[in-house]
């Protein structure tokens, strides 16, 4: 008897399946799907870009459905799994600059220490309405977490894109509000 399955074939890259959720591999070395990011890479991104400590996510798993749509989940589930949603969408990878979601920023943005832009009430109002606005920022360009003060504490509003002296609101249409 010969065994046709070799370790090399085991490691062959599988395809991404847009119909199901797959848990992210722990590290890039554990990757079995081409282009899929690892949990480690996601935690590094949140830590490097926003200063969110990796242990913030100790009780959460990360999943991919489709190419680069990453979800964060705190419950129990086997991988892969074909359901409608698992936790919440948190990040878009597989594009030049990774982009967190508004809902993720609102839920976990309070742990951020870097790349948070503090807005006064009027600027926050325009941001929530989806408006872009001119303003100065001496930090990195790219995706930021916009925040303002609510009931005595900093509260994240969502994700903004800062380029060329302009803060663009990334708040999705359905989440925009006239306040």
């Amino acid at each position, binding site marked *: 008897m010969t065994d046709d399955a070799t370790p090399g074939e085991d490691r062959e890259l599988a395809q991404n399946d847009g119909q199901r959720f797959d848990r992210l591999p722990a590290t890039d070395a554990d990757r079995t799907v081409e282009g899929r990011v690892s949990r480690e890479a996601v935690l590094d991104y949140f830590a490097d870009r926003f200063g969110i400590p990796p242990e913030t996510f100790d*009780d*959460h798993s990360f999943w991919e459905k489709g190419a680069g749509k990453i979800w*964060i*989940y*705190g*419950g*129990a*589930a*086997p991988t892969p*799994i*074909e*359901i*409608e*949603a*698992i*936790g*919440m*969408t948190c990040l878009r990878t597989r594009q030049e600059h990774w982009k967190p*979601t508004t*809902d993720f920023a*609102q*839920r976990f943005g309070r742990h951020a220490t870097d790349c948070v832009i503090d807005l006064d009430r009027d600027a926050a109002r325009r941001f*929530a309405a989806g408006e872009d606005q001119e303003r100065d920022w001496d930090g990195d360009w790219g995706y930021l977490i916009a925040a303002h003060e*609510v*009931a*005595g*504490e900093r*509260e994240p*509003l969502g994700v903004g894109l800062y380029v060329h002296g302009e803060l663009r609101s990334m708040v999705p249409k*359905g*989440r925009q*509000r*006239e*306040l």
Partner: protein
Amino acid sequence: MEPLERYRPIVDDFEAFLAACRRPLGNAVRANTIKAPVDRTLDALAEDGVAYEQADWNPRVLRLETDSPGSTWSSFHGFTHGQEEVSAVPPVVLDPQPGERVWDCCAAPGGKATQMAALMDDRGTVVANDNNLGRISALRFNAERLGATSLAVTNADARNYSLDRFGFDAFDRTLVDAPCSCEGTIRKNPDALDNWSEGHVSSVAGIQKGIIRRAIQATREGGTVVYSTCTFAPEENEAVVQHALDEESCRVVDFDLGLEYSPGLTEWDEDTYDESLERAARIYPHQNDTGGFFVAKLEVTAP
């Protein structure tokens, strides 16, 4: 209001009941503790300039004095979620604990499912299922806005629901907030009784019986199933629970609720129900100035 006449024999102070059903309902929201503690939400509402009254029976239920509860910073941040006061009752009766596996088998649009996730400190597994794909987008939208990460969404018929996809074989608790004839929502939706008929009541009762049976089967021995509807019809309430008692291994148990309510019925028309059905709660609109609701709590017993 004609369909409600059949309840004259069972409702105390029936005229007050009818009068309440004719009055529109105020705006209530639930404080979502996944996003902020209740105290901070109250401060945020005060900053918004919105006056509120905190419900005695549940500090997380707030009656707001505003016509647009969605146009507040509290709402934008997901600190609050528009939810009718009585609609917050079933998750409180179910009493899910952090880390448990909980099934909300008719979950859209997700007010109760996210309330359960909050009661569990967003730790554990809340499987929010609905058979209607269209309503699932509303469920997903609400879950993400409220920051629930412990919630998994499925689209299936609860009557033959398979747990295979999750790799565990039973839930600790299940909420059956069943599709119903919605008589109790008349204050919110004046059209609620337009399509009322005995035929509709009887056909929806058949569906309810299928769902409650599957809910009990999918819940572990010693686990809890809460059955609720927003209707007064005994055919959809006590009769459905009686069917579960007859066909599955379970019993009706007591619960505490800081709201005024009437006990469940033990007879209706020609039918009699088990005495334990008195432990169920019938919440009428005139008792707490809310919508109407029925809630029964079941414990799953050994087969």
